[in-house]
């Protein structure tokens, strides 16, 4: 049997000017005369990593998913490198899908309920909160259960995506310092893991739908697409949070606090229709729009096109912002961990 010949990676790192250049933010900080927390002026941001990632087409191909080889050493711009990082992250999807699943399995190993102990938390919350809050809000228990279960499950997904993204690079320190992996891999792994957990939790929703059937119509077919939109937004937002959290270690705590407060400000426990006269509170809250585009088609058989518009715009603007932040600081992430 021929010995395996996996090709791991090839990298060419070409650095430009010694001393580097001053980033725009430092000029702004100087003008405003405030301390610049990003001040690292002695490093060159012109590092070019020239990598030509290609599928291993040789006779022992199929061994490797990443098979970069370089033939020459042209310097690549940092934007190109950021995009390459993302495309490589997408290409190694078996790796991050496997790692995400392993993380979930590790959590419920040697437990009585198995995978459904994740669901238990959600179920207890819904079944105890339901009767109390439905009478508090003066709602019919049946409609309130349907609303609460879907809202809590979707909120669980959104808040987990936001909170866990802060720890995406910090938690992966072991991996980052042992081998060169695309940073986007850790973001995709986090998103995929939370999608799996979402579908576990969705079983509770399905059970409630069975007993209290909601208004399911044609719009329910939109739900997979809106879920995908939520994930796409989680990717850009998560990347920015992960980069910033790797540098400033109080960001995860701040984000956690925000999400705790956001749970009460966003219509998760209370119906949006109850907020009369202060709708701007909801409309100014982006999390509300993310919840609406998933919850609306699912239980109300409508699509809030205003929310959908806002989400689409946020996706486009967000990715532009993410690529700016990512290309600027990607080379330094390993130094921060």
């Amino acid at each position, binding site marked *: 049997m021929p010995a395996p010949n996996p090709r791991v*990676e090839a990298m060419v790192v070409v650095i430009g000017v010694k001393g580097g250049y001053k980033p725009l933010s430092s000029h702004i900080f100087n003008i405003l005369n405030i301390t610049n927390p990003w001040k690292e002026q*002695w490093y060159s941001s012109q590092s070019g990593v020239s990598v030509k990632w290609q599928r291993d087409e040789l006779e022992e191909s199929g*061994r*490797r998913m990443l098979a970069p080889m370089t033939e020459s050493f042209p310097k690549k711009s940092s934007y190109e490198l950021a995009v390459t990082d993302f495309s490589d992250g997408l290409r190694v999807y078996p790796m991050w899908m496997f790692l995400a699943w*392993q993380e979930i399995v590790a959590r419920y190993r040697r437990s009585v309920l198995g995978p459904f102990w994740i669901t238990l938390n959600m179920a207890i919350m819904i079944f105890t909160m339901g009767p109390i809050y439905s009478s508090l809000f003066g709602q019919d228990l049946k409609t309130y259960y349907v609303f609460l279960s879907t809202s809590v499950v979707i909120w669980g997904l959104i808040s987990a995506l936001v909170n866990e993204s802060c720890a995406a690079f910090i938690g992966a320190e072991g991996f980052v310092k042992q081998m060169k992996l695309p940073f986007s891999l850790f973001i995709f792994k986090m998103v995929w893991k939370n999608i799996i957990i979402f579908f576990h939790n969705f079983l509770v929703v399905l059970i409630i739908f069975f007993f209290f059937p909601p208004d399911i119509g044609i719009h329910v077919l939109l739900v997979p697409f809106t879920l995908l939109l939520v994930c796409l937004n989680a990717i850009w937002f998560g990347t920015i949070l992960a980069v910033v959290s790797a540098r400033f270690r109080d960001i995860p705590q701040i984000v956690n606090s925000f999400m705790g407060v956001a749970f009460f400000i966003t219509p998760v426990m209370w119906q949006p229709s109850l907020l009369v006269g202060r709708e701007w509170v909801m409309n100014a809250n982006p999390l509300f729009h993310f919840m609406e585009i998933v919850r609306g088609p699912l239980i109300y058989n409508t699509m809030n096109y205003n929310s959908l518009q806002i989400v689409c715009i946020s996706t486009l603007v967000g990715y532009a912002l993410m690529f700016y932040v990512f290309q600027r600081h990607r080379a330094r992430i390993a130094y921060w961990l």
Partner: protein
Amino acid sequence: MGLVKAEDLVIKFSVYGSRGRSLKNTSLRFATGGRLGTDESDNIVVTAIDNISFEWREGDRIGLVGHNGSGKTTLLRAIAGIYEPVCGSLNVRGSIASMLSITLGMDSEVSGYENIIMRYTVLGIKRSAITQMIDEVIDFSGLGDYIHMPLRTYSSGMSMRLAFAISTSIRADVLLMDEWLSVGDAEFSKKAEARLRKLVDNAKILVIASHSSSLIEMVCNRVVHLEHGKILSHT
């Protein structure tokens, strides 16, 4: 052009959260470690690799020696692409296998068999290729029925044997290894030596950081002596 070429490579670490007010502005010398200094915002800066240049070509078996903290692991990581150079340039041509930690990706709660799959997945090997390689690895490690037991039931020597078996089945153009080659009992060591020789012969460039002079003598044809991030001697 060589396969690994560095020109005036500098790697500096800013130690965040530390204030260098107690340090003098001139760099200080200690017995171990990279040079310490301060930057503009008074954070302590460690210069791990201080202006080194080298060119390694196909067929070189490089041994990195030096005190603890002289920059061996940092240099290995720089070649692997983990730390992008602060100044200077580093060119690497070819596929890189960074075996800096041979247990990366292994989980102690999972069986040895599944750990092999996990380790290979983390190295980027596809499932179809794993199934071809796994039997040979199990056979070489000599763990027998223990392969289906969780890794936490293994002794440390047994898990090292497994990790060694997996890591030495990888072929690459540039192989980076960091002080992990002394594993196993006497009987295993003989098998391991043969396997290691085969691994070394298959790699175009091998870079090993080690404190063991016997290993360096056995495997390497060039020795790079590092101290405080500078190359002292380079055979």
